[in-house]
C-alpha cells in the first residue's frame, strides 16, 4: 500500500557540509517529517517541499564561504525551485551560499573580533509574517547558538534601506530583553542582522543554528519555531 506524505524536507549535502546530519536528524526524529538528503552532484530535488542548505564548511570555506558550493549542479535546481516560489532555508554556511548565489542580497565579512564564535546568542524576531517564522510573535526573543567565522553581514546602504522598507530583516542579534546594541551585536553585522528573507518571502537565510536549539537537553528549544513554522506553512 502506498502512503501519501504531503510534506518532505530535502537537506543538501555539499562536500564539507557538517550540519547535514544534525538538521536531518532533528527534522526526522523531533518533528517526524519525511526528510531526504540531496547530493550536490545531482540535479534531483526529489520532490522536496522545502530545501534546506545546512551549516558547515562547503569546500572548506576556501576562497570565500559558499563561493564554490554555489556552482554545484544541485544549486542550479535549487535556484529554479526558489524562483518558482519553493521554500528554501539556508542555515549558517547555507546562508552564505544563498548570498553568493544571489538569491539573497549582501555578503558576509569576518566577525568583528576576527575570531570564530561558538556561543548562544539572543535573537529578536523582527518579522513573524514569513513561512519560516509565522508561529512566532513580533519582538519575541529566541535563544539559539551561532558557530561561524564569517557571519558579519554587510550590504551597501541602498540594499540595507531596501531590506528595511520591505521588512526583509527577520532576525537581529539582541539581549534577553530584545534590546539591540553594539555589545549584543556579537559579530559586527550591519544593523545587527542575523537573518533575512528575499522580497518574494520564500527564501530565508540565518546565521544561528535552529537545529542546535530543538531539544531541551541542549539548553534551548527556541529553534523549533523555525521548523514548526515551515511545517505549518506547507500543511496549509
Amino acid at each position, binding site marked *: 500500500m502506498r502512503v501519501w506524505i504531503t510534506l518532505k524536507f530535502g537537506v543538501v549535502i555539499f*562536500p*564539507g557540509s*557538517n*550540519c547535514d*546530519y*544534525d538538521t536531518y*536528524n*532533528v527534522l526526522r526524529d523531533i518533528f517526524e517529517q519525511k526528510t531526504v538528503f540531496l547530493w550536490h552532484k545531482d540535479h534531483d530535488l526529489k520532490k522536496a517541499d522545502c530545501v534546506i542548505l545546512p*551549516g*558547515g*564548511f562547503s*569546500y*572548506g*570555506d*576556501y576562497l570565500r564561504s559558499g563561493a564554490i558550493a554555489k556552482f554545484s549542479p544541485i544549486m542550479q535546481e535549487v535556484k529554479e525551485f526558489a524562483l518558482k516560489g519553493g521554500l528554501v532555508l539556508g542555515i549558517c554556511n547555507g546562508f552564505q551560499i544563498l548570498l553568493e548565489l544571489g538569491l539573497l542580497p549582501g555578503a558576509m565579512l569576518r566577525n568583528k*573580533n*576576527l*575570531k*570564530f*564564535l*561558538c*556561543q548562544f546568542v539572543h535573537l529578536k524576531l523582527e518579522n513573524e509574517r514569513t513561512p519560516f517564522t509565522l508561529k512566532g510573535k513580533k519582538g519575541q526573543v529566541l535563544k539559539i*547558538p551561532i*558557530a561561524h*567565522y564569517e557571519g558579519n553581514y554587510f550590504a551597501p546602504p541602498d540594499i540595507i534601506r531596501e531590506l528595511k522598507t520591505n521588512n526583509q530583516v527577520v532576525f537581529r542579534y539582541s539581549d534577553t530583553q530584545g534590546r539591540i546594541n553594539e555589545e549584543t551585536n556579537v559579530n559586527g553585522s550591519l544593523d545587527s542582522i542575523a537573518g533575512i528573507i528575499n522580497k518574494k518571502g520564500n527564501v530565508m537565510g540565518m546565521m544561528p*543554528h535552529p*537545529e*542546535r536549539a530543538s*531539544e531541551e*537537553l*541542549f*539548553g534551548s528549544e527556541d529553534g523549533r519555531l523555525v521548523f514548526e513554522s515551515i511545517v505549518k506553512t506547507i500543511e496549509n
Partner: protein
Amino acid sequence: MIDKKILEEHNLTVEEYERIVQLIGREPNITELGIFSLMWSEHCSYKSSKIHLKKFPTSGKNVIQGPGENAGIIDIGEGLAVVFKIESHNHPSFIEPFQGAATGVGGILRDIFTMGARPIALLDSLRFGPLTKSKNKAIMDGVVSGISAYGNSIGIPTVGGDVYFNQCYSMNPLVNVFCLGIAKTDKIFYARAEGEKNPVLYVGAKTGRDGIHGATMASAEFGEDLEEKRPNVQVGDPFKEKLLLEACLEVMTKDLIVGIQDMGAAGLTCSTSEMAAKSGSGIIIDLDLVPQREEGMTPYEIMLSESQERMLIVAKKEKEEEVKRIFAKWDLDAVPIGYVTKREKLQVKSKGETVVDLPVEAIVNLCPVYKRENRFPSYLKKAQKLDPVPLPENYNHILKKILSSATIADKEWVYRQYDHMVQTNTALLPGADASVLRIEGKRKALAITIDGNSLYAYLDPITGGKIAVAEACRNLSCVGAHPVGVTNCLNFGNPEKPEIMWQFKEVIEGIAQACKVFNIPITGGNVSFYNETEGEAVYPTPVIGIVGIIEDIAHMISPGFKEKGNAVVLIGKNKQEIGASEYLKSIFKLERGLSPQIDLEEEKKVQELCLEAMSQGILQSAHDISEGGLALCLAESCFLSRQKIGCCIDLKDPIRTDALLFGESQSRIIVSIRSQNIEHLLILAQERKVKATVIGETGGEGLIIHHLNKEIINIPVEEAYKFWKETIPGVFKIK
C-alpha cells in the same frame, strides 16, 4: 657509504647502525637507513619508555583493544565501543603555531577513524609560557586558531580541554590533542596486510616533500641550531580530511577491505611496515605509482614524507573497483601502489629497480630497547622545602588576584573559538568539570575530561602521577559518570638525562598505581620526550584523558549552584597543605613545597559517595576542589549558576586560613543539596566512612566566607566574576 655524519643526521648511534647491519646482513642504502631512522626514532619505537610503560594496567573486561594499535577501544555495551587516543604536537606547534596545532588535530582524527569509528569529540590540553611575553601570546593565539580552524571545518566538536601557564613552557609549549570516536563493536578495523596479492591502495592527498625528518625532528632536542632543524612544516587541509573521513567510513560499512592505516609521522614507511609486521606478511610497492605533488622526488623523500591527509588501505582483491568508486564519489583517488606478499619483507621499487628490501620485523619490532639510567634529581630536596609565608591581611584582595591568574581564569576565550556543539550531542558544554556527550538514541551518555598538573609532578612526581588520574576521575564523578578507560600523553625532557628519566619512571608509577585502585585500564597514549630548549626542560607533564559513562543522562549534574536556600556540603577533609599551590605561585611567586598528598582509597570513597548521591537524585550541583582550593571552588559554583547565586559559608577547621581557603588538598567535592535531603546524604556518607560537612547555604549576591566566626571573604559575586571572566580576553584585546 654511510659515515658518522650521516648517522648523526639520522639520529642513529653507531651501535644502532651496527645492529641494523647485523639484522639485515649488509649495509643499508640511504633510503633504507632513512626508514630505520624513522622507525627506530624515539617517537615511533618508544625505545626509552617501553620498559616503564609496561607498568600500566592495560586489561579489563571491557577492553577490546589496549595499547599497540592506532587507538584504544572500550566496549560500552549495546553493540557500541568508544575509540580514543591522545597525541602530542609540541615541536611543530612551537615552530608554526597555527599549522602545527591544526595538523595535530588532523593526525589524531585519522588515528580514530582509521579504526572504523566516527570521531564525535576532540579535547585539547595546552601549556604555554606566561602571557606577559608577546611571544607566548602569539603562540597561544596561533595554536588556538589552528585547532579551531581544523576541528570546526571538519565538523568534530572540541568539547573540552585544559590550559596551564608556566615559565617552563615559554620555549616549549605543549599541544596535546585527544579524540574520541564511536564504532559498532562488529565493525572495527585494524592495521592489517593479509591475503597474498591483495592490493595496497593509496588514498588522500598527494605526497610532497613535507616534514621529511619530521618524525626524527620530534625526537631531537632543540639547541642553538633551531633554525637548521626547522623543517618545512606541513599545512593542514581539513577539507581534504573531511572527504577522506567520509569516504573511509563509507568503505567500512561494506565488506571491501582487510586493513587500513593512517599515514602520520613516518608516512608510507610506517604504514606499510607496521601493517605487514602486524600480519606476519610482506608488502611490495612501486613508488612510481605514488601520487606526487612535486617534481623529481627521490625514493628517500617519498618514503619519509609526512604529507598530511593520506591513508593506506589493503583491499580485498575482487573489491578494488568498488573501493575506487566510493572514493571517486568523494572526489578522491584510490591508487593501487602495490600488493601483499608472503615473504615478511618491505620491498620498494622505483624506476624498475628495487630500492628497499628489508625484513619488516627488523624495522618494526627489533629496535633496541633502552633501560636508561635514572637518578634522583638534585633540585628536588630544595624545591620541596617551603619556609612559612606571612598570613595575608585582606583575603578579598588575595581571592581577586588568584581569580585573575591566567591558569585559574575562565577559558571561554579559548573554547568559544571551537565549535563545541556541532553534531548536536554536547549535553554539558565546556566550562564544567567534564564534558558530557549524548549517545544518539541511548539513555547512557559519555563524559570526558583531560587533566594534568605539572607543578605537582615537578615537586613530587609519583604523587603528581596519582593526582592526575584521581582528579580526572573526580571530575567525572562530579558530572555523574564512572570512569571506563584511560589514555595518557607523557610530556618530558631529554630521556638521556638520568634526572628526567627518574621523573618519568616515578610519574608512570603514580599513574599506574592510581589506575589500579580505580580499576581502569590504560588503552593507549603517547610519549613526547625532548621537550627542552637549551637544556631547560619542561616540568614533567603527564596529561591524562579519561572516558566515563553516565548510566542515565537524566542524572547528569553540573557544577553551578541551582537555587537559593540550598545547603552547601563539603565532601572530604580540609587539610593544611599549601605547597605547590596556585596561591603560592600567584601571590608569592613561589613554585615550591610538597605537592598535596593523596590517599587513593579515600579518594575513591569520596567519588563513590558523590556518584551514589547523584544516582539517587539528591544533588543539585557538584564541583571538585582543585587549583585555587576551596575558595575558588565556591566562587566557580557561584559563577556557573545561571543567576550568579551567592553563598554564605562558615568554616570551623583549626588550620591556617590561607591554607584552608587556597590549599589544594585532594579528595574534596563541594555539592549543593535541598535541605530535606541533607540527612540522607550524611547517612550515605557515614555508611562509606566519608566525611561530609554542611558548611553553609546558597543565596544572596555575595560570596561570603567565615572562618572561626570571623568574616574573611565578602565580595559581590558579580565583581569577583569580572576578574575571573575578563583576564584572558583582556590579554588579547585588539585596541
